[in-house]
Each structure stands twice: as C-alpha cells, then as structure tokens.
C-alpha cells in the first residue's frame, strides 16, 4: 500500500515539473503547445543514453545536460515557429512533435528503435545512489519547490509582469516597448527546460525510455493537466498533474481497461470547454473573489448605515 502511494506521489511530482512551465505558455503567452511530450522524451533519452552507456548517472550532471538540450531544441523550433499565429502554430507543433518522436524511432543506434532503451544503473547524486521510492521523493520535492519558486520569482520580476500584461493586452505591451515575440520564445524555452528535467527524472525512476511513450497522446495528456488545473495559476498544473499523472497506474491496479485514460482525458477536456474555462483553480479563485466581494459589500452597507445614524 505504501509502495502504491509512493509511486503515485512520484508520478504526480514528475508530471508537475513537466507541465509547470507549460502553464505559463498556455496561460500567459497564449500559445497552445502540443509538443511538450517530445521535449519530455528528449530529456528521458538524455538519461537513457548517458546512463545506459555508463557515461554518468549523476543527476547533477545529467539534469544540466538535459536542460541545455531541451532548452536548445525549444529555442531552435520556437524562434521561427512562434511567429506563426494560432492554428498555424498548433499544426506546426503537432508536426514538430511527430518529427522528434519519429526521428528518435528511426535513429536506432541512439534510441534502440521502437522498443527503446531499458535497464540502466540507478541514478546517483555525488555518489549517493537513489534506489528506493522514498529516495526519489526526496529528490523530486526539492526540484519541484525550486521550479515553483523560480517561476513565482519570474512572475514578480518586470519580465513576469510583462508576461501577465501580454495575456491581457498585447498591443498595449508593444506600445510600452516590450517585444512580445521575445517574451513568448523565452517562456517557451523555460517550459522546454522544465519538461526535459522531468523527462530525466521519469526515466531514471521507471528504468525505461521508449519513443512510443512520448507521442501526441502524451502531449494531449500534458495540456489537459494544465487546462484541468487552470492555466493561469501555478497551483493549477499541480492539481492537474495529481489528478491525471497517476491515472494509468491506478487504472491498472483496479484492472480497468487501458483505454479509460483516453476516455477520461477526452471527457475532462470537453467539461473544461463547456463549464470550466479557467480550470479547477479558476473555481477556487472566483469563489475567493465572490467572498471578497460580499465582504466588501457588507462593509459598504455598514458604512452607509453608520453614515445614516449620524
């Protein structure tokens, strides 16, 4: 039982890291990215190749390497593609997603072809071997806190304020002298870097990297986590990841069909479109706002009454 809970926690934490940056991209930069899983896969294969060929298993080395590769790939694709608006970008990101995964499948000498790579030495940090589930949680929690903290910090910087402004009024932002394109690309790169980090952690835990696991379905699952949780909050993607990341795992535990994941994802997306445009975090936000409004109304009424008394 503890083992099951630990595994679910690990899945949720890993996917939270993977989609945290994505929430900035969807919520503020307003780009609908359907290639997040490909970058996640690139991170995965970074660990698989480095550890599988006995180059290094030290996460302090592997993670920065994955960050550079994931960030560079996002930069190279984001720089030209993000200029394209709306639907064009969606189609371009799907094509890009396909190219990366098919490229991995075809590059057999690197990726091991369709079955992928498996059975690596367990990851280490400065000689400490991370082997038990609890060890993984000890590694994941600080990384998630670090990622969350840096995103919060980014949002409070002038850069982050520009980001929030971009979501509201891009023209005003341009009038203020901020280049929206540059902002958009940098947010996209940030999301790619976090996805690559999550990919490393995912593969070092699961001990397998298979190109088929990073396809379009997985990208849709990731964007669903962001949308279900709520794109414009940092807690939102976390909620989404907790709900959705471990879904295949516990469906397997209760012996439900593997197709239930797809059914649930699809229904959740439809529900979001019809009833929850701001996600689960949106409900919380609006209820807080409603509460605040009713309180201020009370204050207003009592102020009026006290004015009438005198």
């Amino acid at each position, binding site marked *: 039982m503890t083992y099951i809970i630990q595994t679910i926690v690990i899945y949720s934490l890993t996917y939270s890291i993977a989609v945290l940056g994505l929430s900035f991209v969807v919520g503020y930069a307003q780009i609908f990215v359907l290639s997040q899983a490909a970058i996640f896969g690139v991170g995965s294969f970074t660990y698989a190749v480095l550890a599988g060929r006995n180059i290094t298993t030290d996460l302090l080395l592997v993670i920065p390497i994955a960050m550079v590769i994931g960030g560079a790939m996002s930069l190279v694709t984001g720089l030209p593609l993000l200029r394209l608006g709306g639907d064009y970008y969606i189609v371009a990101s799907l*094509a890009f997603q396909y190219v990366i995964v098919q*490229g991995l*499948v*075809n590059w057999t000498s690197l990726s091991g072809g369709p079955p992928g790579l498996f059975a690596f030495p367990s990851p280490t940090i400065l000689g400490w071997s991370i082997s038990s589930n609890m060890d993984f949680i000890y590694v994941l929690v600080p990384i998630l806190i670090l990622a969350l903290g840096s995103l919060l910090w980014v949002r409070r910087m002038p850069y982050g304020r520009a980001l929030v402004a971009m979501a509201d009024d891009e023209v005003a932002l341009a009038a203020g002298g901020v280049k929206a394109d540059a902002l958009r690309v940098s947010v996209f790169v940030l999301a790619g870097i976090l996805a690559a980090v999550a990919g490393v952690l995912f593969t070092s835990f699961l001990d397998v990297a298979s190109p088929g696991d990073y396809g379009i379905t997985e990208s849709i699952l990731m964007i669903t986590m962001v949308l279900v949780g709520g794109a414009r909050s940092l807690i939102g993607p976390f909620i989404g990841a907790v709900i959705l990341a471990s879904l295949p795992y516990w469906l397997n535990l209760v012996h439900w069909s593997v197709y239930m994941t797809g*059914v649930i994802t699809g*229904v959740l997306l439809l529900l979001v479109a019809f009833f929850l445009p701001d996600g689960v975090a949106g409900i919380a936000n609006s209820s807080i706002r409603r509460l605040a409004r009713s309180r201020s109304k009370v204050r207003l009424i009592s102020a009026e009454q006290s004015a009438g008394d005198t």
Partner: protein
Amino acid sequence: MRYLQILVNGLVTGSIYGLAALGFNLIYGTTKIFHVAYGSVIMIALYFVTSISLSGTSVYWAVLVGLAIAFALGGLVYTVLYSPLERLGRNRTTIFIAALGLATLIEAVIPWVYGPQPLTFNLPSLNTVVFIGKIAISPLDIAAIVAALVLSLTLWAVIKWSVVGRQLRAITSNVELGSVMGIRRGVIIGSVFAVGTAIGFIGLTMQSMSSSVTPVVDVTYTLIAAMIVLGGGAGSLVGSYMIALAWGILQNGITLWVSADWATVIVYLAFLTLILVRPLGLMTSTSRRML
C-alpha cells in the same frame, strides 16, 4: 519509366490526401473552426463499414451506408458540440479544446470496441494491379484519382455558382449581414460539416482499402489534412489540391530513394519550411480564393 511510376503512385497518394484536405478545407475555410476531431469522426463511420463488410455485406453497400453515417455524424458534431459552444460565447481556443477532447474520446472508444489490431478489407478485385503501358495501377487507384478530381471540381462549381454556395460565401464574409438577409447560418454550417465529413470519409476509406484500418489512422489523417490546408492557404481549393499532389509525389519519391521511415519526417519538415517561407500558405491572394 521508374520516374513515371513514382509520379503515378504519388498522384494516387496525393489524391487521397487531396480528399482529406478538401473536406477539412470546406469546414475550416467557412467556419474557421479548427476541427481537430475531423479524422476521428470519420473513423467511426470507417470502423462501422469495415466491420459490416467483414461480416459479409457487399462492400459497395457498406460504403454507401458509411457515407450516410459520416454525413450524419458531421452534422451532429456541429449541432451538439460546436454550435452550443459558439452560443456560450466561447473563444476559438476553447472550441479547439472541445474538439481535442472529442478526438481523444473517440480514439479511446474505437479500439475498446473493435480491438487495437489492424483490420483489412478483403477486396482482391479492386486491388488487382493492371498495366497501362508499363505503369502498374489498380482500379482503386484510378477511382481515387477520379474521385479527388471530380469532387474538387464539383465543390468548386457549387460554391461558385449555386444559391447555397452564394449563401455560404455570404455568411463566411459577413455573419451579421448574412443573417439579416435571412440566411440560416446553423443549417448551412451544419451541412458544411456533414458534406466535409462525408468527403473526408471517401478519402480515408480508399486509403484503408488499399492498406488496413487501425484505430490510430485518424491522427495522421487529420494532421495531414490540416497541414495541406494551411500550407495551401486556408480556403483555397486550388492551393490545397496542388499541395496534396506535390505531397504525395514527394513522399513516394523519398520512400523509394531514402526510406519509408524517413519519408514522413522529411515531408513534415518540408511543410514546416513552407509555412515559414509563406506563413499564410501557398495561395493567399483573395482574388484566387474560392470560399
């Protein structure tokens, strides 16, 4: 002779992609709804056709029934999904999210019902290769080329000259004015979805008859249709037909000279390059637009 064979094979593939794009273009060009569940909805009809034809019904009857189902499902998707969302005032991204949800749902339910294994039509007579000169071609291939050409021309003529086509162009350019003139947008857009889905069904059925039916066939079908439409210039029937044929020829050429594994990757990269060079597609000038 080998070049000519590649050209012909490419035309066949391109014609099927052309049908995929034609249906998608009709929907996207008139409504601007990015109907990402396009292939998935068609796949429902396709699976029905495959299963009843495998259980012994004549394939021609099965396809006719499938065509009717595709037509009905297309209209239904607009009436039940997109139209209510439009009335709720949801933006285009939210409508896209709903479409993505529908596609994901169908992709999970189909393999659940029919199993994940590929199904094959048993059509020896349609797939028998005949030789015209030295070019090998099957009756199904000829049917694909003819169907793409005839349907493209028909659709073009209908949009250009018929009353319905004129109403369609009217509401595409100005919704309010169209409704003032008494054009019922719901009915017209509903039929656009129905006809578009039926055209797409013809393409996917032909593709599946010469290879096989798998529950993931819809993803590539929608993606290729969308790429061709955006690459050709949204709303331009000529542009997307040209891109589709070039796509088919390129893909067959690369399959022969490089490898089938890399063919799709290279063609997708070619698409990405195309939209970077011409971000609004090949044919963008409004005078050439048909919708």
